């Protein structure tokens, strides 16, 4: 419990820092942010009204306090374009992003774990070199290229899958592969390294000496013990998945938070931009916290460091 409480306490200053940075974003806009939002043709009255609506006419420390309070109670203002509450707009899009992220992670696990285990078991052979090279290629393929290429092949040429949108499970396949491919590559490398390390441990050799089959020794003994670093990498990669979702959702017109962010940037809807960034950052911090806590629970040595 003390470990969890300490880890939670350490997260508080980070969250305050995150909120401060997100708050300061609107003040980084060159010139007057209100005029930037409304455009040159806006009347003085409109500019004054919006400035008041956003609270930008108040002293900076009051704005900051109000933003922090709003962030804690979930009141991030209203979208300039639609008038909808920022939290409601994000909540509406959240299920789509979560669905995509989960599908991408599932794809990554299904592809990467067997590949990583095969590479470790056959270390130094053509299978290992092939898997390692494939993983490095996977890391190097940017999603904004892989996505359109998959769409050209499987949607345009073969006509097997829809090009864009959300609705049926078929709509999910191409975005999930696009988002999951780099994660699969990282995970395959980690699985290989982790299983390889365990394979050299004496308990695996002892299991083999006792007559345990090679497959059982790998899967029941080495792989199970190599799971901690693999799960940790998976947790830490959530940030990459969330960032990748912005691009993947844009490519496939997937109605999630990432696409909402890009749309709000296009319309200079800064309250919505701030809300999306804050939410993604907080989700990222939360996942890192969860990963740390789970790691600490699984491996007691971490708790006492």
């Amino acid at each position, binding site marked *: 419990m003390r470990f969890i409480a300490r880890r939670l306490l350490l997260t508080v*200053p*980070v*969250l305050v*820092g*995150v909120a*401060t*940075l*997100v708050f300061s*974003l*609107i003040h*980084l*806009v*060159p010139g007057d*942010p209100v005029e930037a939002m409304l455009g040159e043709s806006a009347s003085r009255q409109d500019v004054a009204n919006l400035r008041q609506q956003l609270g930008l006419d108040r002293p900076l420390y009051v704005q900051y306090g109000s933003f922090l309070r709003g962030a804690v109670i979930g009141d991030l203002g209203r979208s300039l374009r639609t008038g909808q509450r920022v939290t409601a707009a994000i909540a509406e899009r959240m299920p789509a992003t979560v669905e995509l992220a989960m599908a991408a992670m599932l794809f990554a696990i299904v592809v990467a774990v067997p590949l990583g285990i095969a590479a470790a078991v056959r270390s130094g052979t053509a299978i290992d070199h092939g898997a390692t090279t494939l993983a*490095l*290629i996977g*890391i*190097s*393929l*940017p999603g*904004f*290229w*892989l996505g*359109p*290429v998959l*769409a*050209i092949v499987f949607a*345009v040429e073969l006509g097997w899958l829809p*090009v864009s949108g959300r609705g049926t499970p078929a709509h999910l396949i191409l975005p999930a592969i696009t988002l999951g491919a780099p994660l699969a590559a990282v995970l395959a490398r980690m699985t290989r390294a982790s299983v390889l390390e365990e394979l050299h441990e004496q308990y695996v050799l002892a299991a083999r000496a006792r007559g345990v089959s090679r497959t059982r020794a790998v899967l029941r003994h080495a792989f199970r013990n190599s799971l901690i670093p693999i799960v940790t990498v998976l947790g830490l990669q959530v*940030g*990459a998945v*969330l*960032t990748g979702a*912005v*691009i993947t959702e*844009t*490519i496939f017109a997937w109605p999630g938070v990432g696409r909402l*962010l*890009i749309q709000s*940037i*296009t319309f200079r809807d*800064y309250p919505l*931009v701030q809300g999306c*960034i804050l939410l*993604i*950052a907080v989700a*990222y*911090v939360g996942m*890192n916290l969860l990963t740390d806590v789970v790691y600490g629970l699984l491996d007691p040595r971490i708790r006492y460091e």
Partner: protein
Amino acid sequence: MVRAGAAIVAVGLLAAVVGPWLVPFNPASQELAARLASPSAVHPLGLDELGRDVLARILGGARISFFVGVVVVGVSAAVGTVVGAVAGYFGGLVDDLISRVIDTLLAFPGLLLATAIVAVLGPSLVNVVLALTVIGWVGYARLARGQALRAREFEYVQAARAVGAGTGRILWRHIAPAVAPAVVVQATLGMAGAIVGEASLSFLGLGVQPPTPSWGTMLNGGRAHLLDAPHLTIFPGLAIATLVLGFNFLGDGLRDLADPKSR
């Protein structure tokens, strides 16, 4: 792996430097009548939606990619290494303050913060470089801090301190060489990250603005023509993937050389 990576990067660099002179077309000149033309003998990679030569634009885009990579990595590595080494060497309050800033910036998925910064500053090449540098230095700082923390306990560093060497001299002569190998490996992999970062922001319409050629902007333009001109998507993407793969091969190979245990 190092050789393959170095060869790919060298070819890419050569293409960026001399390539635009070898192609008889300007990346901005248009043949509107032949827009979206497929690859041919005259235009080996075809023409884009405005009738511009795709090969000329890819070579022009290579210059932008290398420029962004070198500037972002150079500044990030320099700033991050100095800040991280100072934090690690001095410890105490200095370390606490710097570590809190690092923790806060690391709390954002990197490219997301860059997207936010460019979104408020406005889309341009300068702002892309600025945003990628703001997110880039943190990784080097964390790395250098860890290395410096280790290095300050080395006997030769303590001996230098004991004989009265100044802080600046210890940092420059003893800590910096201990930190450098890890930073070089990180910088090589960082080139790949910076190139993808610029291309991602340009793809989202937040980076390099037309008519300046950029691989990300080219891919963004190709999205509307997946059906009738897939070459607009395939070739710029191949250029990015190949160069990034080259830097990743090089970085991975260098890491193996620097730390044989990781092999």
